[in-house]
């Protein structure tokens, strides 16, 4: 969920930049190292970023009728890990701000924090934990993406609530208001995106499972197990 340009007042947008920038730089450092070791990764990461952009510009069928778009960052986190995802989503968010005027420049820090860092970290942790616990692969993917979306939504609501605390009840009261109102679109959206991502992974495993092994998303033995179960 994008916060639009000019929405966050003065101390807050700078603070979110302070939060995001070190993490983005850490991501860039990791990226630099990855690319200098394996140069063929560079074009691959570029097309992955373009894929996230295009995925996030597709309209999803929605229950409530409002238009909703997948964020794609949960999927990116599963595929590339959170550090690289932070960098890719920074570029994607910058392009979204400039191409389709979604988001903004001063709110870029806050948007990267919610969509590029905290959401993907949730997705990644849930995915790793779920795979270790030997839960069904598709269920894990569903949970990871859905919770990444919910984490993003809670963080965005928190960012807004911190910037605009209610007169009565302070941050907690306005957080409740923002959470309640955005829940109408965000709760079904996360479930949809989880289902969509699980379906995407199902098709990818059917058609091009070696890509997933190469990205170390899944081990060979786990892949064989999923394929065996499907047949």
């Amino acid at each position, binding site marked *: 969920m994008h916060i639009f340009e000019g929405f966050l007042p003065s101390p807050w947008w700078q603070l979110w930049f302070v939060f995001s920038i070190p993490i983005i730089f850490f991501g860039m450092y990791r990226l630099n190292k990855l690319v200098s070791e394996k140069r063929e990764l560079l*074009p691959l990461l570029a097309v992955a970023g373009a894929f996230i952009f295009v995925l996030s510009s597709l309209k999803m069928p929605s*229950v409530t009728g409002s238009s909703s778009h997948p964020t794609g960052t949960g999927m990116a986190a599963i595929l590339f890990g959170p550090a690289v995802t932070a960098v890719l989503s920074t570029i994607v968010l910058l*392009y979204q701000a400039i191409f389709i005027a979604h988001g903004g420049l*001063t709110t870029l820090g806050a948007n990267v924090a919610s969509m590029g860092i905290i959401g993907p970290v949730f997705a990644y942790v849930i995915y790793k934990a779920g795979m270790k616990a030997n839960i069904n692969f598709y269920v894990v993917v569903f949970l990871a993406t859905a919770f990444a979306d919910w984490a993003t939504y809670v963080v965005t609501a928190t960012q807004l609530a911190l910037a605009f605390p209610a007169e009565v009840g302070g941050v907690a009261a306005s957080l409740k208001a923002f959470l309640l109102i955005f829940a109408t679109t965000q709760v079904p959206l996360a479930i949809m995106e989880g289902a969509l991502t699980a379906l*995407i992974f199902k098709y990818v495993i059917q058609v091009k499972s070696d890509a997933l092994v190469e990205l170390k998303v899944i081990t060979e033995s786990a892949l064989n197990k999923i394929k065996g179960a499907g047949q």
Partner: protein
Amino acid sequence: MTNILDDYALVSPLRYRNNWLKIAIVMFGVLVGVSSQSFIPPFAIALCMSFATVHFGKTSFKFYLTLLSAPAVFVLLSVVIIAFFFGSGNELLGFDIFSYHLGVNTGGLEMALLVFSRTLGGMSCLFFLSLTTPMVELFSVLKATRLPDSFIEISMMMYRYIFVFLEVAWGIKYAQTVRLGYKDWRTSLTSLAMLSTTLFIRSWEQGEKIFISMSARCYDGKLIFFEEKRPIRANELVLTCTYFAVVLALWYLTRFYSIF
């Protein structure tokens, strides 16, 4: 699907103006807008930037209005929340829902108006940039930032591939739609998953291919572009300085101004 504003920027007459000047104008508007304490400067910025986009940039006014209404849902929802929960002062409007009192007071209304105007001002600055400056022109600016090369390379290649994949996605989506792939909720979900998968596989294969083809052309991790030099003209400079002066004066004069 989404309008890619880059298409409009490519044909804009303002495309051939100095990039740094345009970025300075946009950054100025964004920063003054976000730091202003009254709703007047952001509205003035919005007015000036919209005028510049529509008049100098030759964007159709109708199209510009539809663009501005895009973020409306998010902004209006949030502004309403702020109006009800924020601020103190005399109550202007109030009602009870389920024995829970909701009211708008002067402080809240003023804050809501301020946030609304800031968003409007900021969005019009962003639209000015996106409707007059294609991304290709901004790469030289990006290169001057001294961010790591790999980051800049990835952004440039990503930009190129966004259009390739958008075209693929559109094609598939049309093909699916005429075959009733989006007739109801369930089929839409399956169709969308198929579309995304094809896109993922396509991008993966494209990534492998492009590495081979670029290596064959001696790619060493740095793409080099031709940069045109575009000096700032005197009249542009004068106009920009007048704009800066007017907005700064407004900002200074309205520091302590409040409507209530």
